[in-house]
């Protein structure tokens, strides 16, 4: 499986994604600089975490205008799966490839900790390796992860089974600690209409090795490797 990782100025979690992709696919992804206007033939595009352009205008807003995003859009239209993690999710919403927006965390502070996610859809190349309803533990690390969309859009996402992951309380954890950022309906990740684009705030790439404290993120990368091989 050939994969591409897009690098914007200010992208900073590309290494984490590269390691996780390589572990699952057995092949190093290509790093694509944002000023490129074309993409090589790949089976998957990953937009990693970070602070593209410093998040100075609005998280993801400037990156969404980078030359490479035209090529990402075209690839997505051809059905090439695209996954945006954290800042990558923000870029995808700003680029209009996914609905809604990521606002400042409800607690107003950056939050880095493990969260628990319930797998709400196993019908996508990203999640088919998980069981529906399975609860996984992965970390979050963001300041602007508060998912927002209007009620009609949220209803539609739910109705079409496009909520991929939802924040839930872990074993023994109080409900109040489940949702780290105030996201509407505890949404942690969503799918596009054709289910070939996933945006999520948590970092499955940082939960792929027992020494990192958990391996629940492997399911996502293994799903992609299997579905797209």
């Amino acid at each position: 499986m050939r994969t591409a990782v897009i690098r914007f100025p200010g992208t900073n979690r590309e290494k984490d994604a590269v390691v996780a992709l390589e572990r699952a696919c057995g092949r190093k992804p290509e790093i694509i600089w944002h000023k490129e206007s074309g993409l090589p033939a790949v089976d998957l595009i990953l937009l990693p975490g970070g602070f593209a352009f410093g998040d100075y205008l609005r998280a993801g807003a400037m990156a969404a205008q980078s030359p490479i995003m035209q090529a990402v859009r075209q690839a997505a239209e051809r059905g090439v799966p695209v996954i945006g993690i954290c800042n990558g999710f923000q870029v995808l919403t700003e680029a209009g490839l996914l609905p809604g927006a990521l606002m400042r965390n409800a607690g107003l502070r950056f939050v880095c900790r493990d969260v628990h996610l319930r797998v709400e859809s196993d019908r996508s190349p990203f999640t088919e390796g998980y069981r529906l309803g399975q609860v996984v533990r992965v970390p979050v690390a963001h300041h602007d992860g508060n998912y927002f969309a209007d009620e009609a859009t949220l209803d539609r996402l739910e109705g079409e089974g496009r909520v991929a992951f939802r924040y839930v309380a872990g074993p023994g954890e109080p409900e109040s600690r489940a949702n780290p950022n105030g996201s509407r309906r505890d949404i942690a990740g969503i799918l596009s209409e054709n289910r070939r684009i996933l945006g999520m705030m948590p970092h499955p790439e940082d939960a792929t090795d027992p020494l990192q404290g958990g391996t629940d993120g492997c399911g996502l990368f293994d799903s992609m490797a299997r579905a797209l091989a």
Partner: protein
Amino acid sequence: MSEITPELVAEHGLTPQEYEKVLDILGRAPNLVELGIFSVMWSEHCSYKSSKKWLKTLPTEGPQVIQGPGENAGVIALGEGLAAIFKIESHNHPSFIEPYQGAATGVGGILRDVFTMGARPVMNLNALRFGSPDHPKTRHLVSGVVAGIGGYGNCVGIPTVGGEVNFHPAYNGNILVNAMTVGLAPADRIFYSAAAGPGNPVVYVGSKTGRDGIHGATMASAEFDANSEEKRPTVQVGDPFTEKLLIEACLELMETDAIVAIQDMGAAGLTSSSFEMASKGGVGVELDLDRVPMREEGMTPYELMLSESQERMLMVLKPGREDRARRIFEKWDLDFAIIGRLTESGRMVLRWHGETVGDLPIDPLALASPEYDRPWEPTPAAEAVAVTSQGDPLEALRTLIGSPDLASRRWIWEQYDHLIGGDTIRRPGADAAVVRLADGKRALAATTDCTPRYCYADPVEGGRQAVAESWRNLTAVGARPLAVTNNLNFGNPERPRVMGQLVGCVQGMGEACRAFDYPVVSGNVSLYNETEGQAILPTPVIGGVGLIDDIAHLPAAGLEQAGLALVLIGETEGHLGQSLYLRDIEGREEGSPPPVNLEAEKRNGDFLREQIKQGALAACHDLSDGGLIVALAEMALAGGCGATLRVPDIARDKMTQWLFGEDQARYLVATQDAETLLASARAAGVPAAHIGESGGDALTLEAIGRISLEDLRATHEGWLPDYMSAGVA
């Protein structure tokens, strides 16, 4: 040019004697630009004039040392072609004035010190001291400093993995923000700051220069004010996004052979970077200041030389490499300007649109920087304290574990991205932070430590203890302690008692570093930390770095399973002087700190490390603030498993001492096989005692009582978030 009046000299912080030296060196009166340069080069911050004499006594060498003090950061060999580059630096005053930006730019500055030398930063730590929680400013300062450290480090993408926080009224008017960065570089590709090669281009890269942080902006000089529209704040503003680009661009350029020398523009900006580079290389330099990229119009040579705008670097390139270098910086959308060249003159010549506006001899200025042997007096020895009360130990534990100095720091480190990079294998809250190396087998461990109340009561012992605690924290994760960086935070050195604290702490640190073969490779001195005559507690922070040879044997930080034997390593005397028990339970900040027996430290630590290497330990924790019972509670909370502790008969009538004493050179470990461990300890001459077992959901003191983990956890985790949210209306 404005006339140099005695007032103007004083406002630049130079004494009349120092100004006489200026006149001697120049053979004439300086102009304002030159006066500004002398002022910053001879400032305490740049010249270490009060501390130099004592810093020279510290051990700085060892087979592991590639570069000791004197460069941007220290460099040590890790083997297999790898080097660690690290340093700690203070940003105390700016953080008190503007906590967010002060702390943020502190992080930015220390990152630059490390990547300047060719390292990719891999871990950030910080040592913070705030005033009393009751002080009206404390909450605001905690909130701003933590957000600033996180805001910068998170955006740049370097994990913030460790540190320490204390609260004490002595910091009410003067908080301490010390930031440490550790980076990794190929051992054969370290970049230094000594300029070489007359004719070589001097290149400026990074952000444009603005009027922020100009030392002289605080001046009340009429001439200076006449044309400046307003007083700018002296605290610089950080731009972590630009810093991230600068890291990537510099490391990309460093993969070529274009760089002769490189130095970041930190304190005193262009002045100190250009001076230091030229002085170290024994060359002269000519700068065309009008070529410096400027953020605003109408800037003067004085402002350009003294600006402390952030995210800027100065480099000397090999001839003919300019275009290649320029392309890299253009790729990253950073400014790149050739602003001068090296000469053989030994002088710094500053030009402004072709006209010479400054002409200074480099060596005389750099070498003649003042060095003072300030009068000092030792701290009188404290009297021994008597503790006779034997109160309810579990109630005391409950109070301590939720007290400002021992409560969980989760509220802080959850605001720091401590996982980015994917190599954090020991999360914050434990003895030392651990970040895995690319080989997948080895790991770096780092920690920051100081116990200021010990240093205040006995500077020499406090200095020893700070080093010993950092050495123990590294040992507790199985790391071989390799070297330290230090951040000496003190009050006004012109007061003999304060100067005596510095002298004593440096003496103690030196003794401990020598005993452990644990040299000082970099550091920073921050003096004049006082407000209205109230000095801070002497706070010589040690940033220790060690290497774990095989992470397979890393013991857990907490008790993760029942049925393990708890073994106390090291000798317990029950020393309560200057202990947290005495301060927070009995309300007495008294006595002498626990003595540090360097031989016992070394023997016990080396033994423990060997046990870890052999895989004999399931969990390990060093004993420090709060003593044995606090350490056990921390291990139980960290691993989620309770424990039962047996108070030995000999300690029955001195139970408070036994449980809460802060004797040094001790560790609490959990093992499957106590018998073998005790036998090995006996053979090594290391005191060890089997004192309990893990298990259950409470901490039980046999024959005395129990406290549930749930209760302990609520108290431990609750204090800081409750304190911080109480400030929100």
